[in-house]
């Protein structure tokens, strides 16, 4: 938690490069339904949500793939 609090407020390498050169982020073309959260607890929640979404999508992708493979072999 302390680690998060220490570093989360700072930008990454690209954000820092943009900042140093006076370039700001444009308006997003796609409004995503979620963001990573503003504090530790909301970020934790988003982390769990993201973990589950990635797991479901990845599993779904491979299961679809497998069923197509099985259809081909039958």
């Amino acid at each position, binding site marked *: 938690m302390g680690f998060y609090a220490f570093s989360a407020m700072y930008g*990454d390498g690209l954000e820092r490069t943009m900042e140093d*050169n006076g370039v700001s982020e444009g308006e997003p073309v*796609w409004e*995503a339904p979620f963001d990573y959260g503003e504090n530790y607890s909301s970020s934790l929640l988003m982390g769990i949500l993201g973990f589950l979404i990635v797991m479901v999508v*990845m599993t779904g*992708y491979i299961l679809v793939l497998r069923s197509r493979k099985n259809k081909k072999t039958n």
Partner: protein
Amino acid sequence: MHIPDGLMDPMILFAGWAIALPVIAFAVSKVNRTVDESKVPFMAILAAGIFVAQMLNFPVGGGTTGHLVGATLAVMLLGVYGSIVVMTVILVIQCLVFGDGGITALGLNLLNMAVVAPFASAVIIRLANGKARSATSFAASWFAIVLAASACAMALALSFTLSNGAYGINGIVAIPTMLGWHAVIGVGEGLITMGVISFLAKIAPEMLTMQLGKAEPKPEVML
């Protein structure tokens, strides 16, 4: 390293999609041919784990942070094609669900983190040919981050030139700045990847032999 909307010239955005998509399609077809049931849970958990690890920023000094990209870790555990598929799924979800990286820049983000980074890792891993696994994982991670950042910096510089300064950042500034920060961030990526790989080599060495996209995996060779 997630590029937002409105930063790059439209031509560069198009080029990102045009290069990334065929490579990803090729990787997907390679993985499709070789994936089996036993690898499903592992691939899913690895992808989800990398997603969460990417959320954890570590400070690199000067008010800047870095985070794990995870491409090298995925290459070492799944092979280069498996890594491309996993990184693609993560980046698409980050963009569409969490707004991390612009949707117009998704092609470039895929190119940098799901194509350039895995292939850069794969080159180092292949050169090492299975020797000094820990050192290799560190070097491959560092090289992958620096090369992906170079690709991003080149895109910034080309955007600046093509648009006469309306997009991107002047290459004279963008390239050294991006490389400088990511040379340091790459050390963090390298240490994390080396730690995970060394741990897995001790407790579950068989996890380091899964290579998707290859017809006959060789257990003793990492790639």
